[in-house]
């Protein structure tokens, strides 16, 4: 409850520090972007095959290449299976972002193959999290061996933490979401005849659900930060430590979350302003793709800033900024080198 009165940096300073740390680690950003695109590409290639097979040598491809051939898209959709069923106009431009945000908060189902990709992506993030936070905590290059060493050290610790996360998010999305949106919301709006009123009720549901998710996310973020910075092995211990830290620095942590969330919202709004439309095949397509990738990079940057700023806040509040308990790993020399040296 001290909220920054106990010395150390405030949330704004932590946010700025976090941004600087991320900006000083461009390889991290490049790496997570590469991971993101590499997970997406195989499925995109698979969809490309489906589309190419469906279009074949048809003249319908001309309109599809030049703009939107909505008639063909619907024909494709009617016969599609697997990832093909997700190929709809809703992937165009900013609609894609709304589609995903809406699906996320409304718990809209996705095809199994998309869920599998999401699971693989999350697993990769769990693996990379140790290395990323370690790099951000040290705020100096750890090189590939240092990075992956930290990844390996923390992977199983974070995997145990992920089990707890899975349980907690399972409760949030399985129980709380169901209660809020499938039971409470219908009950509150059962006799409502004014759409605006119903919308406000739904916004309230989103706010409650969003708050719960945000609180849990922050707790798990600081759990990871404490696990890395203090070289903790116990997932439960890290969560307890994170809760303790958040209890003592609730104001600062909340302020920092608001600042980071503002960055997230800004990235969404900015993309909303510049998001490319369907465009044409060829150069236009690549320009649009590049703009979209800049948005993806911005989202990833924001995610890294979350972790970096939270790490910075934690370190500043412990009054030994930059401290990381775990030593930078050094690889042993080869036996031959040892022999020469001795």
């Amino acid at each position: 409850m001290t909220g920054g009165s106990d010395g150390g940096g405030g949330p704004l300073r932590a946010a700025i520090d976090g941004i600087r740390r991320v900006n000083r680690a461009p390889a991290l950003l490049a790496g997570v972007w590469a991971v993101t695109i590499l997970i997406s590409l195989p499925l995109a290639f698979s969809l490309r095959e489906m589309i190419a097979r469906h279009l074949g040598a048809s003249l319908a491809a001309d309109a599809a290449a030049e703009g939107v051939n909505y008639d063909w898209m619907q024909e494709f959709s009617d016969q599609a299976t697997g990832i093909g069923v997700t190929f709809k106009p809703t992937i165009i431009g900013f609609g894609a972002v709304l589609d995903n945000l809406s699906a996320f908060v409304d718990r809209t189902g996705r095809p199994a193959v998309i869920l599998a990709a999401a699971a693989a992506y999350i697993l990769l993030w769990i693996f990379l999290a140790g290395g990323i936070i370690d790099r951000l905590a040290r705020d100096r290059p750890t090189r590939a061996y240092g990075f992956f060493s930290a990844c390996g050290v923390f992977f199983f610790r974070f995997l145990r933490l992920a089990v707890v996360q899975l349980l907690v998010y399972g409760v949030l999305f399985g129980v709380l979401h169901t209660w809020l949106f499938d039971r409470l919301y219908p009950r509150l709006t059962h006799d409502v005849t004014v759409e605006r009123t119903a919308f406000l009720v739904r916004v309230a549901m989103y706010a409650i659900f969003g708050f719960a998710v945000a609180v849990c996310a922050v707790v798990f973020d600081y759990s990871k930060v404490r696990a890395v910075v203090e070289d903790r092995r116990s997932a439960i211990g890290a969560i307890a430590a994170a809760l303790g830290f958040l209890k003592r620095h609730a104001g600062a942590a909340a302020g920092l979350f608001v600042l980071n969330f503002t960055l997230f919202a800004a990235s969404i709004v900015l993309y909303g302003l510049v998001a490319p439309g369907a465009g044409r095949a060829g150069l236009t397509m690549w320009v649009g793709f590049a703009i979209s990738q800049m948005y993806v990079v911005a989202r990833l940057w924001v995610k890294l800033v979350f972790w970096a700023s939270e790490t910075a806040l934690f370190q500043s509040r412990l009054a030994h900024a930059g401290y990381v308990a775990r030593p930078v790993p050094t690889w042993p020399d080869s036996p031959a080198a040892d022999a020469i040296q001795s």
Partner: protein
Amino acid sequence: MRGLLVAALVSGVVNPPLSPRNANYTITARLDPATRTITATETITWRNITANPTGELQFHLYWNAWKNARTTFMRERALSGGRQRPRAADDWARIDVTAVKVLGRDLTDGRRYIAPDDDNQNDETVMVIPLPERIAPGSSATIEVAWTAHVPRTIARTGAIGNFFFLAQWFPKLGVLQDEGWNCHQFHAGTEFFSDYGVYDVSLTVPDGWIVGATGVQRERSANGDGTTTHRYYQEDVHDFAWTTSPDYLERTASFEHATLPGVEMRLLLQPEHAGQGDRHFEATRTTLKYYGEWYGAYPYGHITIVDPAWQSGAGGMEYPTLFTAGTRWLAPSRVTTPEDVTVHEAGHQFWYGIVGNNEFEDAWMDEGFNQFSTARAVSQVYEPNYLMVRYFGGFIPWVFKDVALQREIDGNGLPSYRRNARSDAQATPTHRYFPGTGGSITYSKTALWLNTLERSFGWPWLQSLLAAHFAKWQFKHPKPHDFFATVNEVGKQDVTWFFDQVYRSSNAFDYGIQGLRSTSDDQQYHTTVIARRYGEALFPVEVVVTFRNGERVRERWDGIDRWKLFTYDRPSQALSAQVDPNRTLLLDVDYTNNSKTLEPRGESAARKWSAMWAVWLEDCLLSWASLV
């Protein structure tokens, strides 16, 4: 005819009569909103206009369809899929006839229920009153009925939610006596209604201050001194009566004026949260009155009431004589034709359903399909471009995809819906026997598509003239499918029976395509072969166009009967592409992608573009979930 139309006054009076007026209702009803109860009496003056006497009367008691989950309506609704919300006891409806007198004789005890369509003993939507004496052809009977009804929570566009009441199919209504006997079907989930024309004189008592909208025009309004007010509505030459009441409506008025069509006074009952959308409703109604009036015939009543239903009432998008429900949303982007589509469609039903009164239980395509086609055509005259909109976040937040312009021929007619269900039922099957989950595709979309196909085959003047002839011949009557087909063949001066054999009498699907295109050269010239194929069972003569690199285009006519057809060419230029039905005359073709082949395919290019775009969507999707790590 024009003289008749001009005679229509904004009073509910139509002089001289346009219809047989053989089923006339004088109704007195009192609504108690607190208990959601209607207590009412009606006096029906009915005349037997058939060639045969009848020994019984058959009544629709539609609201009994929502009496429990075992009725035919509810069983069929469950068949159609989708989540069925459990209904509280008070949400169900019922209509209890407490007294029936015919020619002064009390026949209440003789009433019984029948289920002519499926023998469902739990269905009480058709009541029979045996008569002690037969009613001879040309004779009349006075029938007095008393009943009470419990208003359901809104279901199938009827009922109450909060202070909003929409009351349709709410009174015991006679079936239609035909030469073959009574046509009085049970209430089905996928069909609508059928009844005779007459004069409705209805007095409705509601709480003071509540606004009433109803079929016809208000002739009297009197405060009863007990906190209630009685509104008397009157209308001639209609076959149904619906009404609505709520204290929340905003009332707006406007008029439709036209150089050659009679004027129409428009009354709009608007939800307060849609206060800014009044003009959109009026403009859409004007669009309907203008185009339908010019294409088919004039709207004769002189007035029309547009009801903007309350959110979540489920009462939107339904037609009743001289009144219809539109349907809009709090956020309704201007470049998306909601509420215009639904307003044009339901206003359009004044023509196809209201004025031309086909049997919706058996041949719903004759009004819904004609109207879907006409709606798409009228909307395309005024509201293009019209873009795709998707609603997010619980269905509240609209997003307009400006890259995706909707087309009358595809989206307006409902091709995607038809494509998915093309073989689900033959259109000639009585509508109430269509599979409930897919019947709409056959009723609405298939009809609109084959009408549009006729328009593309023979031209709009041809189609317009025969639709107008059908309208003129069958207004205020009950046409059957063969009546329409006869009009087409007579007025259109073309025997298109073969076409109706395909689209009406069968459930076959159309699918023509190019199976193969080769163009190889020897030293002298290119030898080109094109194989056109009929993949579907249905037949239609099509055009095949082969385009050569030098710009030459060769057009071939193929009767489309054989399974395939070979075309060969020896030309100095290589072929570039071949296409079946290049002008897309046959809008019913369920796979248009296979209609063409080119030797310079761009499928890879298109696939690359769209898969790249999809990859961004996937990345964003993954990032959403990764936010939890």
